[in-house]
């Protein structure tokens, strides 16, 4: 079977396109000898190279990370109160049937102060609670708490949940008290590292996954979003402008 005319045209177009790709300014500039150039020519060449580099790389608008800082007691209380409010909203929404069928204020009074070993399946104790603990940990990390402080704050938040919210349906559980902040922090550190890697990759898909596994990076309170703007006159002045939102 002989090739069609349109196929030959396609092949020629492809070869022409590949040749064009090979003749980029960067390649042309690489052949130049800087030792024979004036200062102005060097500056122009540098500018051109920078422009080429800019056009060929993935641009990160922000650098994601965590900035640990100290917090006032009033700030700690504000965060604990905020998370406490969230748990009251999330608990009935996440388990509506249990909340409706088993929950009552009478139960709350009966369960208040009790601490038992729960008999829940591993799915709850080793999956659901550590995941919620990890999100608590990441919330505090996003608000500038160090790793150990985030774990401590997650412990306070989950203890408040166990002793005042969950008792609406069941007594506080020893496993949940320990595993929510501790296993949650373990998982949280892993999610933190993975999400930072993905968010700083510059890849839109990876960035989306990064935000999904660490959603606190999307909120206004996230303090680790840093914008770094390079500034240069391509001669003798070079600087970096860093913008951090608090």
């Amino acid at each position, binding site marked *: 079977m002989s090739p069609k005319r349109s196929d030959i045209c396609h092949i020629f177009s492809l070869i022409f396109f590949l040749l064009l790709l090979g003749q980029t300014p960067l390649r042309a500039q690489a052949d130049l000898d800087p030792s024979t150039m004036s200062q102005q020519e060097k500056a122009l060449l540098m500018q051109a190279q920078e422009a080429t580099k800019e056009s060929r790389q993935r641009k990160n608008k922000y650098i994601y990370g965590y900035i640990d800082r100290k917090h006032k007691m009033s700030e700690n209380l504000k965060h604990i109160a905020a998370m406490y409010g969230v748990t009251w909203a999330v608990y009935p929404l996440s388990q509506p049937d249990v909340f409706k069928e088993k929950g009552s204020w009478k139960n709350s009074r009966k369960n208040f102060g009790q601490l038992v070993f729960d*008999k829940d399946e591993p799915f709850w104790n080793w999956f659901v609670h550590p995941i919620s603990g990890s999100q608590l940990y990441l919330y505090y990390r996003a608000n500038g708490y160090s790793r*150990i402080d985030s774990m401590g704050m997650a412990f306070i938040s989950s203890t408040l949940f166990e002793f005042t919210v969950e008792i609406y349906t069941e007594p506080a559980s020893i496993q949940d008290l*320990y595993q929510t902040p*501790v296993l949650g922090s*373990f998982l949280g550190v892993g999610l933190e590292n993975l999400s930072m890697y993905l968010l700083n990759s510059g890849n839109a898909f990876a960035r989306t996954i990064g935000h999904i596994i660490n959603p606190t990076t999307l909120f206004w309170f996230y303090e680790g979003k840093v914008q770094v703007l390079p500034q240069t006159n391509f001669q003798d002045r070079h600087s970096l402008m860093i913008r951090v939102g608090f």
Partner: protein
Amino acid sequence: MKSIIAVLILVTSLSAQAYRYKFNLKGGINQTWADIKGTDNSEDLLHGTGFNTHFGYKWKYFELTFSSYIYWGEMDGLQFNAQGETIRGEGKFRHVSFGPILRYQFRGVQPFKNWFLFAGLGPVWSLQTIKMDDDFTSTGPKFNRDRKLTFESTGGILAIGIEEDLPYKEMHPVFIELVYSYKKSRKLSVVDASDFTETDILSVEEADQDLSGHFFGISVGFTVF
């Protein structure tokens, strides 16, 4: 005698480089072997795999941690009494324990360069869950494949190990420890496990020593932060 004790204290407490006066979180994986006894002299040697976590504070020579050891294994040939029935067979065994452990760090004893020795002791509260496989016998109709037995146990734990002597916890010092614990059951609950979303406790009864055992384990882990 006094001078020997004084020398021992001096040698085992020599200042080292490890971090101090800091909260820390450690975690690792563990392998456990246990000699477990059920009712009517039934006995089984069990092997379990799992992980352990320790959240605590480190002073100069002491360290107090709240520790948890979790592992899964399989048991065979054990007999239990629940709801007036005698149950015997093989199945899955899950173990979770919590408790404070006070460790003393022998800073002067370095079995390897930049590793120090430690020993710890503490009480332990534990929950052991047994889920029978299809191959089990029961003397009554109440117990079936959808039920699980949960034993609440108490006991003690002894840990001896070595830990890397590093100046900062951010360098993630590694630890290796041998753990021995003894536990005996206090309370037995029969739980309906047919629906994993709901926990339905069918009965709770006293179960003094219905399940007891010596647990030997090795765990390897590191300081996470």
